[in-house]
């Protein structure tokens, strides 16, 4: 009989995020996706003798912002080191990275876990380093090298092995992308390869009280969230199978290995053993000066951080009673979220109305043009005015939507919705006498429906709605449907008692 197995997947992630600077990390060459190969190079990023790197302040600042948003501690003293390796995509023969004193360390990010519980993934370190160039292999026997990417600033983020399933890794990575975009520290475009992932995976197997651990597999260079999820899924099965086939396939006995993800076959493939671990011979880069930070400066950067997407989402739900789904949609874009907050200005009533206008007609109209709501109609003042008008019954909901769509078609500036409503003759009639007169007229013209409302049990419920619609028609959409409904109900009651 085979003793039953329980398995637990253990995953730590290394993630490279390209920072959204205009220029490279150590020289003034422009960062430009898709430029002519080797056209964005200079003596510094070509690694020519005698050239000297100088740190890009924007890259360092963005790194600190990102690290702080991941709740990292910021080093008071940080430095850069040379990591030696010989490949043509890095012509200096070393990469400038950070070895023992990363700029950020001991942070964490929370992701959604089961049953509304959040899970904490600890961040071991975040360090600023340069990217290598690109090798192309489309010529037999040769590699073609493009050094445009050489020297691109990357923040490398390393988590603790706190992730225990593929879905959590997926959620963590997508959450990190959202955060990076929110902070404005990275465009985090997957298409442009601005986020790359390397999960380190092994499995803890328990059989009859005995615990076994498989060797760690590092899956190299994944460039999509799905690949991260699928590769972890695959590895957590593959490693158990390999252990079942050979009980010496355990950590310490068998060596750790690098594997690559084959998306076509949906499997990882063995690349090399890590037994011959690379000896990178790190040493401090003498060309770059260390950077020191003060607590005051770090505090001031922390204060300027925007509210994180997760925190913001929770706040919209708890403060305004939005559904989680609606809150997610609003928060998905930072501009939209800020517009929402500015227009609503803490007023719960306005929040509901704002949500339905923003996520309904406005979002569709913006999406059709592949834009966000806040880029099409950015004025919070105008939004607030419109939302208030609908809320106060100055215009009804459908008129509000009509005004909004018209405004979004025509201009991106400030809009005077009140004037616009007057010009379009959409201001609701508040005069009860006028509305009563319309009700009288509709009752006279629609005797069938009136009789239904009075005495047809099958139609008594639907008839008042029909009559309300008629009154709205007669009024040219200007009657306040709430008042009209009340007037109709009162009139029917009156007729019944007569």
């Amino acid at each position, binding site marked *: 009989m085979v003793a039953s197995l329980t398995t637990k997947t253990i995953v730590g992630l290394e993630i490279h995020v390209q920072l959204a600077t205009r220029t490279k990390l150590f020289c003034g060459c422009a960062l430009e996706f898709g430029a002519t190969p080797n056209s964005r190079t200079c003596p510094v990023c070509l690694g020519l003798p005698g050239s000297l790197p100088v740190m890009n302040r924007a890259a360092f600042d963005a790194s600190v912002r990102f690290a702080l948003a991941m709740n990292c501690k910021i080093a008071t003293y940080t*430095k850069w080191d040379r990591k030696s390796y*010989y490949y043509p995509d890095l012509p200096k023969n070393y990469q400038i990275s950070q070895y023992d004193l990363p700029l950020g360390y001991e942070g964490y990010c929370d992701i959604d876990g089961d049953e509304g519980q959040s899970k904490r993934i600890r961040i071991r370190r975040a360090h600023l380093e340069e990217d290598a160039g690109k090798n192309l292999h489309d010529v037999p026997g040769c590699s073609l090298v493009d050094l445009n990417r050489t020297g691109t600033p990357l923040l490398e983020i390393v988590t603790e092995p706190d992730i225990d399933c593929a879905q959590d890794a997926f959620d963590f990575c997508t959450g990190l992308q959202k955060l990076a975009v929110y902070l404005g520290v990275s465009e985090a475009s997957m298409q442009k390869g601005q986020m790359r992932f390397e999960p380190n995976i092994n499995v803890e197997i328990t059989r009859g009280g005995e615990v076994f651990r498989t060797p760690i597999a590092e899956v190299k260079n994944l460039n999509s969230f799905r690949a991260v999820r699928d590769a972890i899924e695959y590895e957590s099965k593959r490693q158990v199978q390999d252990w079942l086939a050979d009980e010496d396939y355990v950590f310490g006995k068998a060596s750790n290995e690098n594997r690559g993800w084959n998306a076509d076959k949906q499997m990882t493939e063995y690349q090399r053993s890590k037994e011959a671990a690379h000896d990178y011979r790190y040493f401090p880069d003498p060309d770059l000066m260390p950077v020191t930070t003060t607590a005051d400066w770090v505090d001031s950067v922390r204060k300027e951080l925007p509210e994180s997407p997760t925190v913001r989402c929770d706040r919209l739900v708890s403060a305004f009673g939005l559904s989680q789904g609606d809150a997610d949609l609003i928060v998905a874009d930072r501009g939209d979220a800020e517009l929402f907050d500015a227009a609503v200005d803490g007023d719960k009533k306005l929040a509901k109305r704002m949500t339905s206008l923003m996520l309904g007609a406005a979002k569709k109209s913006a999406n059709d043009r592949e834009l966000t709501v806040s880029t099409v109609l950015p004025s919070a003042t105008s939004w607030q005015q419109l939302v208030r008008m609908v809320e106060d019954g100055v215009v009804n909901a459908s008129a509000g939507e009509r005004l909004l769509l018209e405004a979004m078609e025509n201009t991106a500036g400030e809009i005077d919705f009140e004037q616009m409503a007057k010009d379009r003759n959409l201001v609701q009639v508040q005069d009860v006498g006028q509305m009563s007169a319309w009700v009288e007229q509709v009752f006279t013209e629609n005797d069938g429906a009136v009789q239904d409302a009075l005495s047809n049990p099958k139609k008594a419920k639907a008839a008042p709605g029909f009559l309300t619609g008629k009154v709205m028609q007669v009024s040219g959409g200007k009657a306040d449907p709430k008042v009209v409904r009340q007037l109709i109900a009162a009139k029917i009651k009156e007729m019944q008692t007569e």
Partner: protein
Amino acid sequence: MAKLLTESDVRHIATLSRLQLSDNEIAMMTEELSAIVGYVDQLSEVDVEGVVPTAHAVEVQNVFRDDVVRDSIGADKALANAPEREETFFKVPKVLDQDTV
């Protein structure tokens, strides 16, 4: 004097440095590198008790430049000394064991 480096150390360093050395050269390098390391090793005689580790001899910190684009030299200049090129790529012998950053 006992050698500070063994021949196998030197072979390892040669591999890391992508150098192909003959057995004679290995023997010679072991001799010479040992002498160099031995010379530098004199530093370990200095008492550094209580001295904070330092990465730089110069007391300069926080040297930054602004994120302003400067002209690149252009592909043709970049490729001027390349032994081989293909369009505006450097053309090099095929890289097999490609590691990523």
